[in-house]
């Protein structure tokens, strides 16, 4: 019988911090307090664009009790530094979006503070704003740089124009749109800071990327890096929403603390969080596809455009991932992708799980169903004729060396969902039914880790050390935000060292104590950082063996702990460090946007079964099957939890999560009218894994965090078409949008619309 240690990887050990979370002991930022604490609030622009003329502090408020901060109080650069230097920490001359921060206030009494916020009047001379991608690309106003374009890319493979010129092909065109999506982590954003010239700046808060905040604070305060300390508190969900925006709140809290000399806490309420922080980029994708009559892809011409909001933030990187995923897991000899992200006068859009890929994959997988229809092939048969196979190339010319088998994933997904029988049954029963049923799928891939040379630039570092008790502590800057990073790192280290899971401690991310192992984003934590954890842990063991304290091949936890204690007692601290090096043979060229975009991909086929009530026009997902190949599964429960949660967000993205914009502001910034799925709304989500170990992931693991949000929206919209015949190319497919599509289709077919009544 194998010992428990031998099967630690692949077993669902209890979550490291699970006990604290189920007892209410876990400390999130709003649970922390300090003596003399002040509360901080942000006064924001009501207008989308204009010139700040005057700031007035109205009557009835004892202003002398308040700490008041404006742009002039910033010791260093007035910028939330990330990639570009364009986004101010506090607007001083102009405002470029509604909800832009202008004034900060702090006071011990949160009730009085709220009164004070309302008493600040900011006079702004309006400038003409632009709110749509079309107006931005048409340069109706120039609101950013010379042409409103934050970034553009061009991917070129083969000769697209020559392929379209052939007379033996069918050409299919389509335009697809997806709306903004709110991350809607249940813990709103917040930060606490203590800051003064003597000790420097410390912040505690809800975050994904401590070193992003660290870099931004260094620039804001003009202090040396060692004077800035960033500590993660327990984080109540992120999904990308706590990738870049926390740098802004950290800066605000630190400025108030710096000026007041007291600790300052800023916690956003839900309305402020939804109004002011980032969302998924709205997108428009145009496809033009040439396909032979027997269903082989000849050429794909793709135009992918994102609305970036008012400042650059991460838009260039989001665009990159969306661009690279735009042609999907297919082999096509000729591909051209042109992409742009352009400015509008809305709060900046930013990171959200999937990071551009859900937008371009939604378009692609809706389009693939429509191409199949145009040439009279079943959607699954058309995919089968074009799936990428080992040694073939992606759109960027990356040769796929891994043993991908999309047909096998498709077979399993169709079998598990009983696809063929249901498709046949629904076709038979739908004509007489008010509630139409349909089934559809999407096939897709998702690259794990930073794109191209990104991981090499990051050059992440992980450390491991032995504690005086002979335990092992892992030090990374990667944050636990629900996904299970603490647990997976502990499993990887324990497995590498032959220790028990409980003998591994995970250090709290604190820039004063942990190395920079990069941000907690891009499905990179388990795969890239986990590999570094494995390497650092093995280095500890290697050192014990070389020092003669541990016999090579001795794998008992007791022997390790004994050797480790002797080492620490006799020789001092035992610490090991590992740093990222790219796997051999990866080449990426930023100039031509070609080469090996990712070290590996996760591959998937998702099937959705829907009902559409053509009296209410509400669509519901009745069943969902998610089949994916993700390398070695380290923790089955956590891995399935990632997939189920991502699918749930994807179902919301597809059907109900509708951000309504009015003059650049989110008009429905409440949980009451921005509708995310509840326990009563979701189907059973059935998750299946195929394992094909990746040589450069820890024990063969690949990244999975983002993958599950790529597939649901196209699978659901394909299923809606199967149910109703309505080809809807925009999400979310709200009842209003489905009704509109129904009426339009009826108007084409019949002299008068014939909408059935309930």
């Amino acid at each position, binding site marked *: 019988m194998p010992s428990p240690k031998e099967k630690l990887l692949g077993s669902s050990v209890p979550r490291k911090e*699970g*006990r604290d*979370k189920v007892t*209410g002991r876990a400390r*999130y930022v709003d649970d922390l307090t300090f003596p003399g604490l002040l509360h901080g609030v942000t006064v924001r622009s009501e207008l989308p664009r204009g010139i700040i003329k005057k700031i007035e502090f109205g009557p009835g408020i004892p202003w002398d009790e308040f700490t008041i901060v404006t742009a002039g109080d910033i010791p260093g650069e007035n910028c939330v530094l990330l990639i570009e230097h364009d986004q101010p920490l506090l607007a001083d001359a102009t405002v470029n979006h509604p909800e832009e921060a202008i004034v900060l206030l702090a006071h011990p009494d949160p009730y009085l503070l709220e009164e004070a916020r309302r008493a600040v009047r900011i006079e702004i001379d309006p400038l003409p704003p632009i709110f749509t991608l079309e107006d931005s690309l048409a340069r109706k106003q120039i609101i950013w740089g010379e042409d409103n374009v934050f970034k553009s890319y061009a991917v070129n493979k083969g000769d697209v124009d020559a392929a379209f010129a052939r007379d033996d092909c069918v050409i299919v065109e389509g335009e697809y749109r997806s709306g903004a999506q709110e991350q*809607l982590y249940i813990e709103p954003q917040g930060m606490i800071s203590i800051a003064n010239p003597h000790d420097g700046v410390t912040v505690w808060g809800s975050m994904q990327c401590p070193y992003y905040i660290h870099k931004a604070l260094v620039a804001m305060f003009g202090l040396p890096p060692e004077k800035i300390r960033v500590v993660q508190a327990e984080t109540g969900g992120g999904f990308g929403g706590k990738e870049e925006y926390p740098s802004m709140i950290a800066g605000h809290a630190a400025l108030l603390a710096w000026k007041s000399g007291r600790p300052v806490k800023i916690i956003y309420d*839900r309305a402020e969080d939804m109004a002011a922080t980032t969302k998924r980029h709205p997108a428009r994708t145009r496809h033009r596809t040439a396909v032979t009559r027997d269903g082989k892809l000849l050429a794909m011409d793709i135009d992918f455009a994102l609305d970036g909001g008012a400042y650059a933030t991460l838009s260039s990187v989001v665009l990159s991932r969306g661009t690279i995923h735009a042609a999907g897991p297919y082999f096509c000899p000729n591909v051209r992708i042109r992409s742009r992200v352009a400015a509008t006068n809305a709060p900046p859009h930013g990171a959200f799980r999937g990071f551009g890929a859900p937008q371009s994959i939604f378009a692609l997988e809706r389009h693939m169903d429509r191409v199949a229809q145009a040439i009279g092939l079943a959607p699954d048969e058309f995919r089968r004729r074009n799936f990428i196979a080992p040694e073939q190339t992606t759109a960027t010319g990356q040769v796929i060396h891994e043993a991908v088998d999309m047909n096998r994933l498709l077979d399993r997904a169709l079998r598990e969902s009983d696809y063929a029988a249901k498709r046949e049954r629904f076709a038979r029963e739908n004509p007489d039914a008010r509630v139409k049923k349909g089934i559809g799928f999407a096939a897709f891939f998702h690259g794990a880790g930073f794109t191209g040379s990104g991981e090499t630039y990051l050059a992440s570092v992980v450390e491991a050390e032995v504690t005086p008790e002979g335990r092992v502590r892992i030090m990374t800057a990667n944050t636990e935000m629900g996904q299970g990073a603490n647990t997976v790192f502990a499993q990887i280290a324990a497995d590498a060292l032959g220790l028990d899971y409980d003998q591994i401690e995970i250090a709290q991310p604190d820039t004063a104590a942990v190395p920079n192992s990069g941000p907690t984003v891009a499905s990179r934590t388990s795969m890239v950082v986990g590999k570094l954890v494995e390497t650092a842990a093995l280095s500890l063991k290697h050192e014990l063996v070389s020092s003669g304290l541990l016999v090579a091949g001795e794998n008992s936890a007791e022997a390790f702990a004994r050797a480790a204690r002797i080492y620490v007692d006799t020789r001092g601290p035992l610490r090991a460090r590992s740093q990222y090096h790219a796997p051999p043979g990866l080449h990426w060229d930023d100039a031509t946007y070609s080469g090996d975009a990712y070290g590996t991909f996760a591959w998937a086929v998702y099937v959705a079964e829907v009902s559409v009530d053509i009296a209410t026009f509400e669509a519901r997902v009745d069943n969902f099957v998610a089949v994916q190949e993700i390398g070695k599964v380290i923790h089955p429960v956590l891995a399935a*939890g990632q997939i189920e949660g991502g699918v749930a967000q994807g179902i919301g993205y597809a059907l109900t999560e509708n951000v309504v914009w009015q003059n650049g502001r989110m008009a429905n910034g409440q*949980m*009451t009218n921005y509708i995310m799925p509840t326990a009563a709304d979701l189907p059973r989500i059935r998750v299946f894994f195929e394992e094909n170990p990746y040589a450069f992931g820890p024990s063969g693991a690949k990244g999975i965090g983002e993958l599950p949000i790529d597939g649901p929206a196209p699978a659901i919209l394909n299923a809606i078409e199967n149910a109703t015949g309505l080809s809807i190319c925009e999400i979310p497919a709200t009842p209003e949008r489905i009704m509109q599509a129904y009426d339009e289709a009826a108007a084409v077919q019949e002299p008068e619309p014939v909408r059935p009544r309930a």
Partner: protein
Amino acid sequence: VPDAAAKIEIACTVNGAPRHFRAWPMERLLDALRTELALTGTKEGCGEGECGACSVLLDGALVNSCLVPVAQAAGSDIRTIEGLANAGDQLAAVQEAFIACGGAQCGICTPGMILAAHALLQKHPHPSEDEIRNGLSGNLCRCTGYTKIFAAVVRACQAMSATR
């Protein structure tokens, strides 16, 4: 602007112990619990009764503590997440099940969700799937897609039946 003199004396039972504190009558029970009693296990997710992160048991009934004025809780018996484990730190069956089944991810909805699950199992000791879905539909979770939470409720139900 609230006046400290307008505060009233509140007496109630919290997690089995009598508690006395001063609060403004219309102060949210959520704030009183978190600030006056330092019971920070009760979370604020939306402040408008939509998300359920602030759920507590008020005289045995599940309520959103962001919608309850503290004056209304005077004289009542309140249970928060901190009071669910038995003395001696023995976790309740629902808490154990959430750990075992992966029902908690980021953990911010977890205290409210666990209290909702506890209330559900008090009302329906052997809930059907629909009863579970409806019983938890006032508590939003953005991480799990609820599947593992349903599994945790079923497991807790089995564990509780076994010990009855």
